[in-house]
């Protein structure tokens, strides 16, 4: 039997879904442009307000409102690379984040653990940070260790230093950090630099992605902007991640929620680009629905599943990698 070569047959190369049409994404983008130009973002720290002002945004210092014109928004977002490689301690653990490639990471930041040895629910410790890093290091389908829990057995003022110490010793995978502000991010950067042989080497092979959250709706606190600026300038990966709650801190409709969510995340990405042109950014989401009958932020829901499938489409619309809640 001769089955000859097809002249260019189309293949899927996998299976996926598109939550939005291109026109629907355009509509979310235009909604976002209107929100950022008119309502704007409330920005706590002068340092961030200065960066927005120098970048061509309209700034009202009395009310701390930053309004981002469309041309500034679109230009700054276009400076962010569309492919990002998050590096492990060794190159075999490096992870390429782009397009529709899918990877997983663990949750953060828990304050309690179910102990696998005695089954008890208890506050988390520095040993949990180390044990969970080692466990994730052993699991093949989880590519990145997000610093999973806080350490309640050390003074809270210095917990961030202990978290990175326990993490770096117990994983060779890339690390997602939830460090707060300039201070927290710098601590984690200095410690990671020690592992790879200096800040220059760390900049060449970024090992840290910094997950930082705006406060919905439309507020950028100093802890958020400090972390984003520090990550961008150290050539690590800045990830503004909105935790908007549909029906609480965002509109009750999921489309409206996408608009406020998008405004917050893009505000963070513009800031990173104004701090360091070309900074590596990831478009983050833990946005979900606020269950109005139970008054609870619920995550194991069809709403979260849809939002976390829609967010990567918006990230691709801006040619940015994505990080979303799930599992």
């Amino acid at each position, binding site marked *: *039997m001769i089955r000859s070569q097809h002249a260019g047959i189309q*293949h899927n190369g996998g*299976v*996926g*879904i598109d*939550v939005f049409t291109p026109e629907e994404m355009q509509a979310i983008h235009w909604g976002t442009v209107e929100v950022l130009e008119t309502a704007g973002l409330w920005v706590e720290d002068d340092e961030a307000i200065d960066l927005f002002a120098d970048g061509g945004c309209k700034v009202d210092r009395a009310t701390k409102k930053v309004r981002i014109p469309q041309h500034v928004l679109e230009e700054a977002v276009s400076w962010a690379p569309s492919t990002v490689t998050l590096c492990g301690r060794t190159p075999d653990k490096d992870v390429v*984040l782009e397009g*529709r*490639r*899918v*990877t*997983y*990471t*663990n*949750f953060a930041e*828990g304050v309690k*653990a*179910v102990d*696998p040895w005695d089954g008890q629910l208890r506050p*988390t410790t520095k040993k949990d940070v180390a*044990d*969970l890093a*080692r*466990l*994730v290091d*052993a*699991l*093949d*389908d*989880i*590519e990145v260790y997000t610093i999973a829990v806080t350490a309640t057995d050390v*003074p809270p003022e*210095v917990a*961030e*230093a*202990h978290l990175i*110490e326990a993490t770096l*010793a117990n*994983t060779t995978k890339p690390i*997602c950090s939830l460090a707060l502000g300039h201070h927290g991010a710098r601590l984690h950067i*200095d*410690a990671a630099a*020690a*592992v790879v042989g200096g800040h220059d080497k760390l900049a060449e092979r970024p090992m840290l992605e910094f997950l930082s959250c705006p406060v919905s709706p439309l507020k950028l606190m100093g802890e958020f902007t400090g972390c984003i600026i520090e990550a961008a300038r150290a050539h690590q990966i800045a990830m503004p991640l909105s935790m908007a709650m549909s029906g609480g801190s965002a509109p009750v409709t999921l489309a409206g929620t996408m608009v406020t969510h998008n405004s917050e995340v893009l505000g963070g990405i513009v800031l990173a680009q104004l701090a360091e042109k070309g900074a590596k950014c*990831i478009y983050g989401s833990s946005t979900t629905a606020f269950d109005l009958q139970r008054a*609870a932020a619920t*995550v*194991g*829901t069809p709403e*979260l*599943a*849809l939002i*976390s*499938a829609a*967010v*990567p489409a918006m990230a*691709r619309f801006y040619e940015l990698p994505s990080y979303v*809640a*799930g*599992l």
Partner: protein
Amino acid sequence: MQTAHEKTITGLIPALGGANQIYGAGMIESGVTIDYGVLVMDNEIARMAKYILRGIPTNDETLMVDEIIEVGSEEDFLSRMSTLKMMRAHQSKAGLIDRRVREEWDMDGGTDLYYRCKEKAKELVADHKVEELPSDVVDQIKAIVSKSEKDAGVV
């Protein structure tokens, strides 16, 4: 059961949407608590989701039309060389998910998925080795921690 249902819809649908990183493995109670056993279970769910993302590759090699004609209605595919040769590449791996019939499962202790994942978690935490950092690096990081403690006035 509720956890596995929630993990499956929120682990799979975003994957189909092409999310580059999906975070949440090990999480229960809307993010208050991390569960070592659930973390291992989520690794199983992630592996199954990635299998689904591959879709159904459709080409001459996978359509296997010649072989289907050869086997006809007289034989089956269980003993075919192609089945043995391609099973690893083409079938999902069950891992800690049990696909045996009830009798075999019963005889082997009849444990549930969560129990097996928890046991696996204990085993990995105890046995998995991560290459140690050189002692000078450990010292440098210790110095960063000590300085942070001194600056905060907690020592």
